[in-house]
């Protein structure tokens, strides 16, 4: 069994409530940090841990925290990104639903490190029942003296507020999220300046993913150095993977990033193999925005090495022959699935979610959906495949935020690895491969 740091207590009855959570050792990290450490020491511990952002970009968390501007007399904010909308991703939901106190604990310690007296959880609107769970946990933590004024008599004040979004994938992009928090449309801002310099209400702000902030708790408990020993290379600690698609056991798993992709898919501890005794066809290992890989390239890298479930190995081979860890949304396709149709659903998703600010993204996502729909329904031409390729290349790198890239990459990878399937659709307009 792999070592569990986040989900270790997930099955303890009553762990959602404060009493059980506390009895199981909860909030020890708050006592440790606030009573015995300076904010900078907490940041140092996170730096030592090697923790990388779990929202998808993998940016080193300790480094981001140390970039936070600290002008005199200006408030600073911590904002927890709980917008989780990347197709295939549902790990943050699991943490918030079943271990709300773990997130609140991580938020208090992180707020202390960053000097945030008002910390916001921006949660996607569709998770409509979760704010009640979080607010209950916040009220319990406050009643126990871990939130509010003069926490544990240390002079540190902190409040946590839950802010509900209202249905917009783009609000997971940190600057769109901040616009939305300010009560505006979710149009991303141009970076730089990064939120660490100018964020919420123009004040220095750190935006971190739910899982990142929850991971601060075990880091404080076992120490940054100890945390860094788990995993391999720059993939330290544990990672939550949400697995879905045609597998026997969809769900959220905590892995220590030393296991292979093959083990993750086939072992009973994790996905339990492909459903209905079918064969593996392809997989998108890190949420819909990362490249799809056919089975052979998924299980082994181009060099013929076993592909492992960590940041480095998943991206080994670059875009042409590799993929990415991304958000940890692991989508498995069995041999009967149609890549064209699957790609079409993703293209539709990105068209639906484009905020419309940049023409390559606004127009390009629409065109990609239209062309894919034509191919899928037997009205496509061979030249459409090249046209698709052309459009995705014109989007990539030419937009304000990475949603444009995120829309382009799945189409590019699908054509790159499954061109024959696209051609087959064009040549056989009456029937689909499946």
């Amino acid at each position, binding site marked *: 069994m792999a070592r569990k740091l986040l989900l270790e207590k997930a099955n303890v009855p009553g762990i959602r409530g404060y009493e059980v959570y506390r009895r199981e050792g909860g909030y020890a990290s708050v006592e440790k940090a606030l009573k015995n450490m300076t904010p900078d020491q907490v940041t140092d511990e996170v730096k030592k841990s090697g923790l990388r952002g779990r929202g998808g970009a993998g940016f080193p968390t300790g480094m981001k925290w140390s970039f936070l501007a600290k002008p005199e007399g200006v408030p600073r904010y911590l904002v927890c990104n709980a917008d989780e909308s990347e197709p*295939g991703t549902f790990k943050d939901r699991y943490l918030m639903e079943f271990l709300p106190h773990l997130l609140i604990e991580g938020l208090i310690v992180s707020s202390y490190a960053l000097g945030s007296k008002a910390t916001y959880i921006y949660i996607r609107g569709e998770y409509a029942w979760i704010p009640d769970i979080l607010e209950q946990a916040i009220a319990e933590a406050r009643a126990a003296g871990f939130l509010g004024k003069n926490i544990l008599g240390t002079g540190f004040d902190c409040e946590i507020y839950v*802010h509900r979004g209202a249905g917009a994938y783009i609000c997971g992009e940190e600057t769109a999220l901040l616009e*939305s928090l300010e009560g505006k*449309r979710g149009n991303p801002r141009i970076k730089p300046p990064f939120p660490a310099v100018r964020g919420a209400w123009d004040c220095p702000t750190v935006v971190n993913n739910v899982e990142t902030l929850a991971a601060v708790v075990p880091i404080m408990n076992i120490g940054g150095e100890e945390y860094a020993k788990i995993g391999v290379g720059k993939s330290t600690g544990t990672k939550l993977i949400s697995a*879905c698609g045609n597998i026997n056991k969809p769900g959220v798993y905590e892995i220590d990033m030393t296991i292979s992709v093959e083990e993750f898919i086939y072992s009973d501890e994790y996905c339990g193999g492909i459903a209905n005794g079918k064969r593996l066809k392809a997989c998108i290992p890190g949420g819909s925005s990362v490249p799809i890989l056919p089975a052979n390239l998924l299980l082994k890298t181009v060099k013929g090495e076993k592909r492992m479930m960590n940041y480095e190995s998943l991206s080994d081979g670059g875009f042409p022959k590799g993929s990415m860890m991304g958000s940890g949304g692991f989508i498995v396709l069995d041999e009967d699935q149609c890549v064209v149709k699957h790609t079409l659903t993703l293209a539709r998703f990105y068209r639906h979610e484009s905020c419309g600010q940049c023409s390559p993204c606004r127009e390009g996502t629409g065109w990609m959906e239209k062309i894919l729909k034509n191919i899928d329904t037997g009205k496509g031409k061979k030249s459409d495949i090249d046209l698709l390729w052309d459009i995705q290349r014109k989007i990539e790198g030419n937009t304000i935020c990475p949603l444009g890239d995120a829309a382009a990459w799945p189409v590019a990878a699908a054509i790159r690895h499954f061109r024959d399937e696209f051609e087959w659709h064009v040549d056989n307009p009456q029937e689909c491969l499946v």
Partner: protein
Amino acid sequence: MVQFSDEKLKKVNEIVGRYPEGKQKSALLPVLHLAQEEFGGWLSVETMDYVATLLKLEPIEVYEVATFYSMYNLKPVGRYMFEVCQTGPCMLRGSDDIIDYIKKKLGIGVGETTPDGLFTLKTVECLGACGYAPMMQLGKHFREHLTPEKVDQIIEECRRTAAANN
């Protein structure tokens, strides 16, 4: 006339208080949620104008937000809205069949409401339940691992609650 009760007005004040002084615009999304819940499940122009007055905003600031986010309904909807996810991971687990089944069963197309005003069918994009697919959102909650039998049960359940509340 559109008007929050005193209790809801207190709630609005509490929400405004979560944000820094002078930044009451930040309360717009939560207050629109509250308004939609209170005033018939959708946002009429009258409702939006009311929210603008409450938060001291120009009406246009409210309209541009209400039209951006998919959860705000700008038209009346049925009492029960079936929002079925159709994105990749759900599609892999048969969401298309579920959508077809609901269409047949309720006799309506996507985006339509049954003549009795009870049900609206909508397709939506990934709701973060991919591992429990196929799924739909119904009000505040998710209904997961859908099968035709489960859909039948849900429809029955809605009809029963509606009858009991009438």
